[in-house]
Protein backbone atom coordinates (compact mmCIF):
# COMPACT_ATOMS: atom_id res chain seq x y z
CA UNK A 1 0.00 0.00 0.00
CA UNK A 2 2.63 2.45 1.09
CA UNK A 3 5.05 1.07 -1.47
CA UNK A 4 2.42 1.59 -4.15
CA UNK A 5 1.89 5.19 -3.09
CA UNK A 6 5.65 5.70 -3.13
CA UNK A 7 5.83 4.27 -6.62
CA UNK A 8 3.00 6.52 -7.79
CA UNK A 9 4.70 9.49 -6.27
CA UNK A 10 8.10 8.67 -7.72
CA UNK A 11 6.55 8.22 -11.16
CA UNK A 12 4.85 11.62 -10.97
CA UNK A 13 7.77 13.54 -9.60
CA UNK A 14 10.69 11.91 -11.44
CA UNK A 15 10.21 13.95 -14.67
CA UNK A 16 10.62 17.12 -12.60
CA UNK A 17 13.56 16.07 -10.45
CA UNK A 18 16.04 17.94 -12.65
CA UNK A 19 14.02 21.12 -12.66
CA UNK A 20 13.52 21.02 -8.92
CA UNK A 21 17.11 20.27 -8.14
CA UNK A 22 18.53 22.90 -10.47
CA UNK A 23 16.23 25.58 -9.10
CA UNK A 24 17.00 24.47 -5.55
CA UNK A 25 20.70 24.68 -6.30
CA UNK A 26 20.33 28.24 -7.57
CA UNK A 27 18.38 29.09 -4.44
CA UNK A 28 20.64 27.51 -1.88
CA UNK A 29 24.02 27.68 -3.51
CA UNK A 30 25.14 24.17 -2.68
CA UNK A 31 24.18 20.62 -3.40
CA UNK A 32 23.53 19.43 0.13
CA UNK A 33 21.06 22.19 0.93
CA UNK A 34 19.54 21.87 -2.50
CA UNK A 35 18.89 18.23 -1.83
CA UNK A 36 17.40 19.04 1.56
CA UNK A 37 15.11 21.59 -0.03
CA UNK A 38 13.96 19.12 -2.67
CA UNK A 39 13.31 16.62 0.10
CA UNK A 40 11.15 19.17 1.89
CA UNK A 41 9.27 19.73 -1.34
CA UNK A 42 8.76 15.99 -1.68
CA UNK A 43 7.39 15.76 1.83
CA UNK A 44 4.84 18.47 1.11
CA UNK A 45 4.00 17.08 -2.29
CA UNK A 46 3.63 13.54 -1.03
CA UNK A 47 1.25 14.75 1.65
CA UNK A 48 -0.83 16.16 -1.21
CA UNK A 49 -0.49 13.21 -3.53
CA UNK A 50 -4.18 13.24 -4.53
CA UNK A 51 -3.78 16.84 -5.69
CA UNK A 52 -0.56 16.09 -7.49
CA UNK A 53 -2.23 13.29 -9.40
CA UNK A 54 -4.89 15.58 -10.82
CA UNK A 55 -2.62 18.41 -11.90
CA UNK A 56 -2.09 19.21 -15.53
CA UNK A 57 1.14 21.05 -14.88
CA UNK A 58 2.69 19.51 -11.81
CA UNK A 59 6.04 21.17 -12.42
CA UNK A 60 4.73 24.66 -11.79
CA UNK A 61 2.94 23.41 -8.68
CA UNK A 62 6.08 21.73 -7.37
CA UNK A 63 8.19 24.78 -8.07
CA UNK A 64 5.63 26.90 -6.33
CA UNK A 65 5.95 24.74 -3.22
CA UNK A 66 9.69 25.01 -3.43
CA UNK A 67 9.57 28.75 -3.90
CA UNK A 68 7.27 29.18 -0.92
CA UNK A 69 9.31 26.90 1.30
CA UNK A 70 12.41 28.86 0.47
CA UNK A 71 10.98 32.35 0.72
CA UNK A 72 8.79 31.71 3.77
CA UNK A 73 11.57 29.87 5.52
CA UNK A 74 13.88 32.81 5.04
CA UNK A 75 11.28 35.31 6.16
CA UNK A 76 10.72 33.55 9.45
CA UNK A 77 14.34 33.36 10.25
CA UNK A 78 15.21 36.77 8.96
CA UNK A 79 17.82 35.29 6.70
CA UNK A 80 18.23 32.46 4.32
CA UNK A 81 16.84 29.27 5.84
CA UNK A 82 19.65 27.24 4.46
CA UNK A 83 22.98 27.22 6.00
CA UNK A 84 25.69 27.60 3.40
CA UNK A 85 24.77 30.94 1.95
CA UNK A 86 26.48 34.27 2.20
CA UNK A 87 28.62 33.80 5.25
CA UNK A 88 29.88 30.41 4.29
CA UNK A 89 30.69 31.43 0.80
CA UNK A 90 32.42 34.54 2.04
CA UNK A 91 34.42 32.46 4.42
CA UNK A 92 35.52 30.17 1.66
CA UNK A 93 36.48 33.26 -0.30
CA UNK A 94 38.76 34.35 2.43
CA UNK A 95 40.70 31.15 2.66
CA UNK A 96 43.58 30.96 0.24
CA UNK A 97 43.32 27.31 -0.62
CA UNK A 98 39.97 25.93 -1.58
CA UNK A 99 39.16 22.69 0.12
CA UNK A 100 38.42 19.60 -1.89
CA UNK A 101 34.80 20.13 -1.06
CA UNK A 102 34.88 23.62 -2.50
CA UNK A 103 36.51 22.39 -5.67
CA UNK A 104 33.79 19.83 -5.92
CA UNK A 105 31.20 22.52 -5.40
CA UNK A 106 32.38 24.44 -8.41
CA UNK A 107 34.78 26.96 -9.82
CA UNK A 108 35.77 30.19 -8.15
CA UNK A 109 33.72 32.16 -10.67
CA UNK A 110 30.70 30.07 -9.86
CA UNK A 111 31.17 30.58 -6.16
CA UNK A 112 31.51 34.31 -6.66
CA UNK A 113 28.22 34.40 -8.47
CA UNK A 114 26.58 32.30 -5.79
CA UNK A 115 28.09 34.52 -3.10
CA UNK A 116 26.67 37.60 -4.81
CA UNK A 117 23.32 35.87 -5.17
CA UNK A 118 23.29 35.09 -1.49
CA UNK A 119 23.53 38.79 -0.71
CA UNK A 120 20.31 39.53 -2.53
CA UNK A 121 17.18 39.43 -0.53
CA UNK A 122 15.53 36.06 -0.61
CA UNK A 123 12.74 36.91 -2.97
CA UNK A 124 15.00 38.58 -5.48
CA UNK A 125 17.24 35.59 -5.37
CA UNK A 126 14.36 33.19 -5.76
CA UNK A 127 13.00 35.10 -8.76
CA UNK A 128 16.34 35.16 -10.52
CA UNK A 129 16.99 31.52 -9.75
CA UNK A 130 13.71 30.48 -11.30
CA UNK A 131 13.97 32.84 -14.21
CA UNK A 132 17.42 31.72 -15.21
CA UNK A 133 16.11 28.18 -15.26
CA UNK A 134 14.18 29.29 -18.30
CA UNK A 135 10.72 29.91 -16.92
CA UNK A 136 8.61 32.46 -18.72
CA UNK A 137 6.99 35.40 -17.02
CA UNK A 138 3.65 33.63 -17.25
CA UNK A 139 5.08 30.60 -15.47
CA UNK A 140 6.73 32.78 -12.86
CA UNK A 141 3.42 34.50 -12.29
CA UNK A 142 1.74 31.26 -11.40
CA UNK A 143 4.64 30.19 -9.22
CA UNK A 144 4.97 33.42 -7.28
CA UNK A 145 1.42 34.81 -7.41
CA UNK A 146 2.89 38.15 -8.45
CA UNK A 147 1.45 40.27 -11.25
CA UNK A 148 3.40 40.68 -14.48
CA UNK A 149 4.23 44.29 -13.76
CA UNK A 150 5.48 43.56 -10.28
CA UNK A 151 7.47 40.62 -11.56
CA UNK A 152 9.10 42.66 -14.29
CA UNK A 153 10.02 45.43 -11.91
CA UNK A 154 11.41 43.05 -9.32
CA UNK A 155 13.36 41.02 -11.82
CA UNK A 156 14.94 44.15 -13.23
CA UNK A 157 15.85 45.48 -9.81
CA UNK A 158 17.23 42.12 -8.77
CA UNK A 159 19.44 41.99 -11.86
CA UNK A 160 20.72 45.51 -11.34
CA UNK A 161 21.56 44.74 -7.77
CA UNK A 162 23.26 41.47 -8.63
CA UNK A 163 25.24 43.08 -11.42
CA UNK A 164 26.38 45.79 -9.04
CA UNK A 165 27.40 43.25 -6.42
CA UNK A 166 29.37 41.34 -9.00
CA UNK A 167 31.14 44.49 -10.10
CA UNK A 168 31.83 45.53 -6.54
CA UNK A 169 33.36 42.17 -5.91
CA UNK A 170 35.54 42.74 -8.95
CA UNK A 171 34.37 39.48 -10.25
CA UNK A 172 32.87 40.83 -13.44
CA UNK A 173 33.65 38.39 -16.18
CA UNK A 174 35.67 40.51 -18.53
CA UNK A 175 33.78 39.36 -21.59
CA UNK A 176 30.38 39.82 -20.11
CA UNK A 177 29.41 42.57 -22.48
CA UNK A 178 30.30 40.58 -25.55
CA UNK A 179 28.63 37.34 -24.85
Amino acid at each position, binding site marked *: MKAARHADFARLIAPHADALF*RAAYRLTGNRADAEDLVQDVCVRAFANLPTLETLERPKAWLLKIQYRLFVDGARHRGRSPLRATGEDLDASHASAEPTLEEIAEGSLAERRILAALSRLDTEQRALLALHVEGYTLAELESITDLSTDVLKARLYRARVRLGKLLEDARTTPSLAMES
Partner: protein
Amino acid sequence: MNCTNVASILDDHAQARLSAAERCALDEHVGSCEPCAHAWRAQTALLALPLPATPADLIERALRAMDARAARAPRRGRARVAVVGVVLAAGAVLAAATVVRLLERADDRTAPATAGQGDARNSASTQTPSPEASASAAVANAGDGRPVSVEDVQSEYVMIIQVPPEYPREALERKLDGDVTLEYTIDQRGSVKDVRALRSSDPQFEAPAIAAVSQWKYLPRLAAGQRVEVHRVNTIIRFSLTMPPPAGPQAGTKSGGGVRQLQLKMSPPAQPQGTKAAESATPEPAHPADSATFDHSSTVAWQRAADEDFRGAELELDELRATYDLDDRQSNQVWGFYGYIYTQYGDYGRAIDAYEKAVAIRNVNLPGQWTSLASLYFARHQYDKALKTLLAYKERSPRGRISAEATAMIEKLRALGVTEETL
Protein backbone atom coordinates in the same frame (compact mmCIF):
# COMPACT_ATOMS: atom_id res chain seq x y z
CA MET B 1 16.25 50.93 -27.34
CA ASN B 2 15.48 51.88 -23.75
CA CYS B 3 15.61 50.32 -20.28
CA THR B 4 12.17 48.76 -20.66
CA ASN B 5 13.21 47.08 -23.90
CA VAL B 6 16.33 45.70 -22.28
CA ALA B 7 14.34 44.39 -19.35
CA SER B 8 11.87 42.72 -21.70
CA ILE B 9 14.65 41.07 -23.69
CA LEU B 10 16.10 39.71 -20.49
CA ASP B 11 12.71 38.67 -19.15
CA ASP B 12 11.87 36.81 -22.33
CA HIS B 13 15.22 35.06 -22.64
CA ALA B 14 15.37 36.73 -26.02
CA GLN B 15 19.07 37.66 -26.20
CA ALA B 16 19.92 34.98 -28.71
CA ARG B 17 16.99 35.80 -30.97
CA LEU B 18 17.93 39.45 -31.59
CA SER B 19 18.61 40.69 -35.08
CA ALA B 20 21.95 42.37 -35.81
CA ALA B 21 20.33 45.79 -35.74
CA GLU B 22 18.57 45.13 -32.45
CA ARG B 23 21.79 43.83 -31.04
CA CYS B 24 23.60 47.02 -32.06
CA ALA B 25 20.95 49.21 -30.47
CA LEU B 26 21.07 47.14 -27.36
CA ASP B 27 24.85 47.34 -27.01
CA GLU B 28 24.65 51.06 -27.46
CA HIS B 29 22.08 51.46 -24.69
CA VAL B 30 23.78 49.08 -22.30
CA GLY B 31 27.08 50.85 -22.92
CA SER B 32 25.65 54.13 -21.73
CA CYS B 33 23.13 53.06 -19.07
CA GLU B 34 24.65 51.88 -15.82
CA PRO B 35 21.64 50.02 -14.42
CA CYS B 36 21.12 48.16 -17.66
CA ALA B 37 24.83 47.31 -17.77
CA HIS B 38 24.45 45.79 -14.29
CA ALA B 39 21.34 43.91 -15.26
CA TRP B 40 22.97 42.57 -18.38
CA ARG B 41 26.07 41.52 -16.48
CA ALA B 42 23.95 39.76 -13.87
CA GLN B 43 21.98 37.84 -16.46
CA THR B 44 25.15 36.79 -18.26
CA ALA B 45 26.73 35.63 -15.03
CA LEU B 46 23.64 33.65 -14.08
CA LEU B 47 23.47 31.97 -17.45
CA ALA B 48 27.15 31.11 -17.14
CA LEU B 49 26.50 29.14 -14.00
CA PRO B 50 27.09 25.49 -14.79
CA LEU B 51 24.09 23.24 -14.55
CA PRO B 52 24.44 21.10 -11.47
CA ALA B 53 24.00 17.41 -12.16
CA THR B 54 20.93 16.10 -10.41
CA PRO B 55 21.83 13.25 -8.07
CA ALA B 56 20.64 10.08 -9.77
CA ASP B 57 18.86 8.82 -6.68
CA LEU B 58 17.45 12.18 -5.59
CA ILE B 59 13.83 11.10 -5.47
CA GLU B 60 14.67 7.74 -4.02
CA ARG B 61 16.60 9.42 -1.23
CA ALA B 62 13.80 11.89 -0.66
CA LEU B 63 11.39 9.01 -0.27
CA ARG B 64 13.71 7.36 2.20
CA ALA B 65 14.06 10.61 4.13
CA MET B 66 10.29 10.86 4.21
CA ASP B 67 10.15 7.41 5.67
CA ALA B 68 12.63 8.36 8.32
CA ARG B 69 10.58 11.42 9.11
CA ALA B 70 7.46 9.40 9.31
CA ALA B 71 9.43 7.25 11.73
CA ARG B 72 7.72 4.18 10.43
CA ALA B 73 10.77 2.32 9.32
CA PRO B 74 14.26 2.27 10.71
CA ARG B 75 16.67 4.20 8.56
CA ARG B 76 19.58 2.30 7.19
CA GLY B 77 23.02 3.75 6.91
CA ARG B 78 24.99 5.93 9.18
CA ALA B 79 22.46 6.75 11.82
CA ARG B 80 20.72 3.91 13.51
CA VAL B 81 17.15 4.38 14.32
CA ALA B 82 14.93 5.20 16.86
CA VAL B 83 14.68 3.56 20.13
CA VAL B 84 12.39 6.08 21.65
CA GLY B 85 9.73 8.06 19.93
CA VAL B 86 7.37 10.19 21.90
CA VAL B 87 4.12 11.71 20.87
CA LEU B 88 3.33 14.83 22.77
CA ALA B 89 -0.33 15.49 22.41
CA ALA B 90 -1.82 18.85 23.15
CA GLY B 91 -4.72 19.18 25.46
CA ALA B 92 -7.59 20.82 23.66
CA VAL B 93 -6.39 21.02 20.11
CA LEU B 94 -5.47 17.86 18.32
CA ALA B 95 -1.85 18.82 18.09
CA ALA B 96 1.06 16.58 18.59
CA ALA B 97 4.80 16.63 18.40
CA THR B 98 6.53 13.38 17.75
CA VAL B 99 10.03 12.94 18.94
CA VAL B 100 12.13 10.42 17.18
CA ARG B 101 15.49 9.79 18.64
CA LEU B 102 18.15 8.58 16.32
CA LEU B 103 21.04 7.06 18.11
CA GLU B 104 24.32 8.73 17.45
CA ARG B 105 26.61 7.09 15.00
CA ALA B 106 28.40 4.05 16.25
CA ASP B 107 31.87 5.48 15.65
CA ASP B 108 31.16 8.41 17.96
CA ARG B 109 30.85 6.25 20.98
CA THR B 110 33.17 7.46 23.61
CA ALA B 111 34.52 5.43 26.42
CA PRO B 112 36.18 7.14 29.35
CA ALA B 113 39.74 7.91 28.41
CA THR B 114 41.26 6.45 31.52
CA ALA B 115 44.88 5.55 30.94
CA GLY B 116 45.41 1.83 31.02
CA GLN B 117 41.77 0.96 30.74
CA GLY B 118 41.87 0.49 27.01
CA ASP B 119 44.88 -1.77 27.39
CA ALA B 120 43.10 -3.82 29.97
CA ARG B 121 40.19 -4.28 27.67
CA ASN B 122 42.34 -5.31 24.76
CA SER B 123 44.48 -7.78 26.62
CA ALA B 124 43.58 -10.85 28.56
CA SER B 125 40.44 -10.56 30.64
CA THR B 126 42.27 -11.52 33.78
CA GLN B 127 44.21 -8.26 33.72
CA THR B 128 43.20 -5.64 36.25
CA PRO B 129 41.14 -2.84 34.74
CA SER B 130 41.47 0.78 35.76
CA PRO B 131 41.70 1.73 39.44
CA GLU B 132 38.15 3.08 39.49
CA ALA B 133 36.83 -0.07 37.90
CA SER B 134 38.66 -2.19 40.45
CA ALA B 135 37.14 -0.19 43.23
CA SER B 136 33.66 -0.70 41.81
CA ALA B 137 34.35 -4.37 41.30
CA ALA B 138 35.39 -4.65 44.92
CA VAL B 139 32.09 -3.17 46.02
CA ALA B 140 30.29 -5.55 43.76
CA ASN B 141 32.07 -8.54 45.18
CA ALA B 142 31.37 -7.40 48.70
CA GLY B 143 27.72 -7.12 47.66
CA ASP B 144 26.95 -10.61 46.54
CA GLY B 145 30.22 -12.41 46.08
CA ARG B 146 30.04 -12.82 42.32
CA PRO B 147 33.01 -11.83 40.20
CA VAL B 148 32.29 -8.94 37.85
CA SER B 149 34.07 -7.74 34.73
CA VAL B 150 33.40 -4.07 35.18
CA GLU B 151 34.49 -3.26 31.64
CA ASP B 152 31.38 -5.05 30.47
CA VAL B 153 29.05 -2.96 32.63
CA GLN B 154 27.26 -0.52 30.39
CA SER B 155 23.96 1.18 29.95
CA GLU B 156 22.29 3.32 27.35
CA TYR B 157 21.49 6.91 28.12
CA VAL B 158 17.93 7.11 29.32
CA MET B 159 15.65 10.07 29.14
CA ILE B 160 14.31 11.11 32.52
CA ILE B 161 12.84 14.52 32.00
CA GLN B 162 11.23 15.46 28.75
CA VAL B 163 9.88 18.94 28.42
CA PRO B 164 7.36 19.17 25.59
CA PRO B 165 7.85 21.92 23.05
CA GLU B 166 5.30 24.64 22.58
CA TYR B 167 3.44 24.67 19.33
CA PRO B 168 4.38 27.94 17.63
CA ARG B 169 1.36 30.22 17.69
CA GLU B 170 1.68 31.24 14.09
CA ALA B 171 1.96 27.66 12.94
CA LEU B 172 -1.14 26.85 14.93
CA GLU B 173 -3.04 29.67 13.29
CA ARG B 174 -1.91 28.66 9.85
CA LYS B 175 -2.44 24.98 10.66
CA LEU B 176 1.14 24.23 9.75
CA ASP B 177 2.79 20.92 10.43
CA GLY B 178 6.51 20.72 10.64
CA ASP B 179 9.56 19.01 11.93
CA VAL B 180 12.96 19.88 13.26
CA THR B 181 16.02 17.68 13.36
CA LEU B 182 18.23 18.51 16.31
CA GLU B 183 21.70 17.39 17.17
CA TYR B 184 23.11 17.71 20.64
CA THR B 185 25.44 16.35 23.27
CA ILE B 186 24.44 14.67 26.51
CA ASP B 187 27.11 15.55 29.01
CA GLN B 188 28.40 13.39 31.84
CA ARG B 189 25.76 14.72 34.19
CA GLY B 190 23.01 13.97 31.71
CA SER B 191 22.26 17.55 30.75
CA VAL B 192 21.76 18.49 27.15
CA LYS B 193 24.19 20.93 25.61
CA ASP B 194 25.30 22.26 22.23
CA VAL B 195 21.85 21.90 20.72
CA ARG B 196 21.60 22.89 17.10
CA ALA B 197 19.00 22.47 14.46
CA LEU B 198 20.32 20.42 11.58
CA ARG B 199 17.28 21.12 9.48
CA SER B 200 13.69 22.05 9.77
CA SER B 201 10.65 22.25 7.60
CA ASP B 202 10.11 25.78 8.80
CA PRO B 203 12.41 27.85 11.02
CA GLN B 204 9.59 28.92 13.32
CA PHE B 205 9.60 25.42 14.80
CA GLU B 206 13.29 25.55 15.63
CA ALA B 207 13.29 27.86 18.64
CA PRO B 208 10.58 25.98 20.57
CA ALA B 209 12.21 22.65 19.73
CA ILE B 210 15.64 23.83 20.87
CA ALA B 211 14.20 25.46 23.99
CA ALA B 212 12.41 22.25 24.96
CA VAL B 213 15.27 19.85 24.26
CA SER B 214 17.73 22.06 26.13
CA GLN B 215 15.76 21.26 29.28
CA TRP B 216 15.69 17.52 28.77
CA LYS B 217 17.59 15.40 31.27
CA TYR B 218 19.06 11.98 30.82
CA LEU B 219 20.74 9.38 32.89
CA PRO B 220 24.07 9.54 31.11
CA ARG B 221 25.46 6.55 29.31
CA LEU B 222 27.63 4.20 31.29
CA ALA B 223 30.60 2.55 29.66
CA ALA B 224 32.72 0.21 31.78
CA GLY B 225 30.66 1.46 34.72
CA GLN B 226 31.69 5.06 34.17
CA ARG B 227 29.59 7.96 32.95
CA VAL B 228 30.53 9.22 29.53
CA GLU B 229 29.47 12.06 27.29
CA VAL B 230 27.37 11.16 24.30
CA HIS B 231 27.91 13.27 21.22
CA ARG B 232 25.76 13.85 18.19
CA VAL B 233 22.51 12.57 19.51
CA ASN B 234 19.95 13.21 16.79
CA THR B 235 16.34 13.81 17.54
CA ILE B 236 13.54 14.68 15.19
CA ILE B 237 10.71 16.63 16.75
CA ARG B 238 7.62 16.55 14.63
CA PHE B 239 4.86 19.05 15.08
CA SER B 240 1.57 17.87 13.75
CA LEU B 241 -1.98 19.07 13.97
CA THR B 242 -3.47 16.05 12.30
CA MET B 243 -1.55 13.13 13.74
CA PRO B 244 -3.84 10.97 15.81
CA PRO B 245 -2.43 10.23 19.24
CA PRO B 246 -1.41 6.60 19.53
CA ALA B 247 -4.12 4.28 20.72
CA GLY B 248 -3.90 2.45 23.97
CA PRO B 249 -3.38 3.45 27.55
CA GLN B 250 -1.96 6.74 28.66
CA ALA B 251 1.55 5.41 28.68
CA GLY B 252 0.85 4.08 25.23
CA THR B 253 3.58 1.85 24.02
CA LYS B 254 2.37 1.04 20.61
CA SER B 255 5.62 0.20 18.97
CA GLY B 256 6.34 -0.12 15.33
CA GLY B 257 9.54 -0.82 13.51
CA GLY B 258 11.64 -0.36 16.59
CA VAL B 259 10.09 3.02 17.26
CA ARG B 260 8.46 3.46 20.57
CA GLN B 261 5.87 6.03 21.20
CA LEU B 262 4.95 7.48 24.51
CA GLN B 263 2.40 10.12 25.08
CA LEU B 264 3.02 13.14 27.20
CA LYS B 265 0.90 16.13 27.87
CA MET B 266 1.86 19.07 25.78
CA SER B 267 1.78 22.58 27.09
CA PRO B 268 -1.58 23.97 25.98
CA PRO B 269 -1.35 26.10 22.88
CA ALA B 270 -2.28 29.74 23.03
CA GLN B 271 -5.73 29.40 21.46
CA PRO B 272 -7.36 26.38 22.99
CA GLN B 273 -10.30 26.21 20.62
CA GLY B 274 -10.40 22.67 19.54
CA THR B 275 -12.47 19.61 19.36
CA LYS B 276 -13.47 17.56 22.33
CA ALA B 277 -12.55 14.54 20.32
CA ALA B 278 -8.93 15.26 20.94
CA GLU B 279 -9.46 15.11 24.65
CA SER B 280 -11.21 11.81 24.58
CA ALA B 281 -8.51 10.42 22.35
CA THR B 282 -5.88 11.64 24.80
CA PRO B 283 -6.90 10.30 28.16
CA GLU B 284 -5.55 12.13 31.11
CA PRO B 285 -3.48 10.22 33.64
CA ALA B 286 -5.55 8.86 36.50
CA HIS B 287 -4.13 11.37 38.94
CA PRO B 288 -3.04 14.49 37.10
CA ALA B 289 -1.70 16.07 40.29
CA ASP B 290 0.48 13.05 40.85
CA SER B 291 1.84 13.45 37.39
CA ALA B 292 3.22 16.86 38.27
CA THR B 293 4.58 15.50 41.53
CA PHE B 294 6.18 12.64 39.70
CA ASP B 295 7.90 15.03 37.33
CA HIS B 296 9.09 17.12 40.23
CA SER B 297 10.46 14.15 42.17
CA SER B 298 12.12 12.75 39.05
CA THR B 299 13.82 16.08 38.60
CA VAL B 300 15.09 16.07 42.18
CA ALA B 301 16.29 12.48 41.85
CA TRP B 302 17.97 13.27 38.57
CA GLN B 303 19.66 16.30 40.10
CA ARG B 304 21.06 14.19 42.95
CA ALA B 305 22.24 11.46 40.62
CA ALA B 306 23.88 14.11 38.43
CA ASP B 307 25.73 15.34 41.53
CA GLU B 308 26.75 11.73 42.22
CA ASP B 309 24.63 11.76 45.36
CA PHE B 310 23.28 8.31 44.55
CA ARG B 311 22.05 7.68 48.05
CA GLY B 312 20.06 10.92 47.91
CA ALA B 313 18.60 9.93 44.56
CA GLU B 314 17.65 6.53 45.91
CA LEU B 315 15.88 8.09 48.90
CA GLU B 316 13.94 10.37 46.62
CA LEU B 317 12.79 7.41 44.57
CA ASP B 318 11.92 5.46 47.73
CA GLU B 319 9.71 8.30 48.88
CA LEU B 320 8.09 8.67 45.49
CA ARG B 321 7.26 4.98 45.40
CA ALA B 322 5.96 4.93 48.97
CA THR B 323 3.76 7.99 48.61
CA TYR B 324 2.13 7.65 45.24
CA ASP B 325 0.28 5.23 43.13
CA LEU B 326 2.47 5.03 40.09
CA ASP B 327 1.20 4.04 36.70
CA ASP B 328 3.11 1.59 34.53
CA ARG B 329 5.21 4.13 32.74
CA GLN B 330 6.17 5.81 35.98
CA SER B 331 6.96 2.51 37.71
CA ASN B 332 9.05 1.48 34.77
CA GLN B 333 10.99 4.73 34.91
CA VAL B 334 11.52 4.46 38.66
CA TRP B 335 12.80 0.88 38.51
CA GLY B 336 15.05 1.73 35.59
CA PHE B 337 16.35 4.67 37.60
CA TYR B 338 17.06 2.38 40.58
CA GLY B 339 18.91 0.04 38.26
CA TYR B 340 21.03 2.88 37.07
CA ILE B 341 21.79 4.11 40.57
CA TYR B 342 22.76 0.66 41.84
CA THR B 343 24.94 0.16 38.79
CA GLN B 344 26.73 3.39 39.69
CA TYR B 345 27.09 2.15 43.28
CA GLY B 346 28.65 -1.00 41.93
CA ASP B 347 25.83 -2.93 43.61
CA TYR B 348 25.16 -5.06 40.58
CA GLY B 349 22.96 -7.60 42.31
CA ARG B 350 20.42 -4.98 43.29
CA ALA B 351 20.80 -3.27 39.92
CA ILE B 352 19.76 -6.53 38.27
CA ASP B 353 16.76 -6.86 40.58
CA ALA B 354 15.67 -3.32 39.78
CA TYR B 355 16.01 -3.77 36.02
CA GLU B 356 14.14 -7.07 36.23
CA LYS B 357 11.26 -5.21 37.87
CA ALA B 358 11.40 -2.51 35.18
CA VAL B 359 11.25 -4.92 32.25
CA ALA B 360 8.56 -7.01 33.96
CA ILE B 361 6.12 -4.16 33.30
CA ARG B 362 4.69 -5.50 30.13
CA ASN B 363 3.23 -2.52 28.38
CA VAL B 364 6.38 -0.46 28.54
CA ASN B 365 9.33 -1.61 26.51
CA LEU B 366 12.54 0.37 26.69
CA PRO B 367 15.40 -1.26 24.78
CA GLY B 368 17.98 0.49 26.99
CA GLN B 369 16.69 -1.32 30.06
CA TRP B 370 16.90 -4.72 28.41
CA THR B 371 20.44 -4.17 27.22
CA SER B 372 21.54 -2.71 30.55
CA LEU B 373 20.16 -5.77 32.31
CA ALA B 374 21.75 -8.15 29.83
CA SER B 375 25.07 -6.36 30.14
CA LEU B 376 25.00 -6.76 33.93
CA TYR B 377 24.39 -10.49 33.61
CA PHE B 378 27.14 -10.63 31.04
CA ALA B 379 29.54 -8.74 33.30
CA ARG B 380 28.79 -11.26 36.03
CA HIS B 381 29.50 -14.10 33.60
CA GLN B 382 25.90 -15.26 33.85
CA TYR B 383 25.78 -15.76 30.11
CA ASP B 384 22.66 -17.89 30.05
CA LYS B 385 20.70 -15.21 31.86
CA ALA B 386 22.14 -12.55 29.60
CA LEU B 387 20.91 -14.44 26.55
CA LYS B 388 17.53 -15.17 28.11
CA THR B 389 17.11 -11.47 28.78
CA LEU B 390 17.95 -10.57 25.21
CA LEU B 391 15.58 -13.21 23.85
CA ALA B 392 12.80 -11.95 26.10
CA TYR B 393 13.47 -8.46 24.78
CA LYS B 394 13.25 -9.77 21.23
CA GLU B 395 9.98 -11.50 21.98
CA ARG B 396 8.47 -8.37 23.43
CA SER B 397 9.59 -6.14 20.58
CA PRO B 398 7.34 -5.63 17.61
CA ARG B 399 8.33 -7.97 14.80
CA GLY B 400 11.28 -9.08 16.90
CA ARG B 401 13.33 -5.97 16.14
CA ILE B 402 16.08 -5.34 18.64
CA SER B 403 18.69 -2.67 19.09
CA ALA B 404 22.18 -2.89 17.64
CA GLU B 405 23.60 -3.23 21.17
CA ALA B 406 21.42 -6.26 21.78
CA THR B 407 22.41 -7.83 18.47
CA ALA B 408 26.08 -7.24 19.26
CA MET B 409 25.68 -8.85 22.66
CA ILE B 410 23.97 -11.90 21.18
CA GLU B 411 26.91 -12.25 18.79
CA LYS B 412 29.37 -11.93 21.66
CA LEU B 413 27.51 -14.67 23.52
CA ARG B 414 27.49 -16.85 20.43
CA ALA B 415 31.28 -16.44 20.27
CA LEU B 416 31.38 -17.73 23.84
CA GLY B 417 29.35 -20.74 22.80
CA VAL B 418 26.11 -19.54 24.36
CA THR B 419 23.24 -19.76 21.90
CA GLU B 420 19.53 -20.37 21.95
CA GLU B 421 20.22 -24.06 21.42
CA THR B 422 22.51 -24.37 24.44
CA LEU B 423 20.04 -22.85 26.88
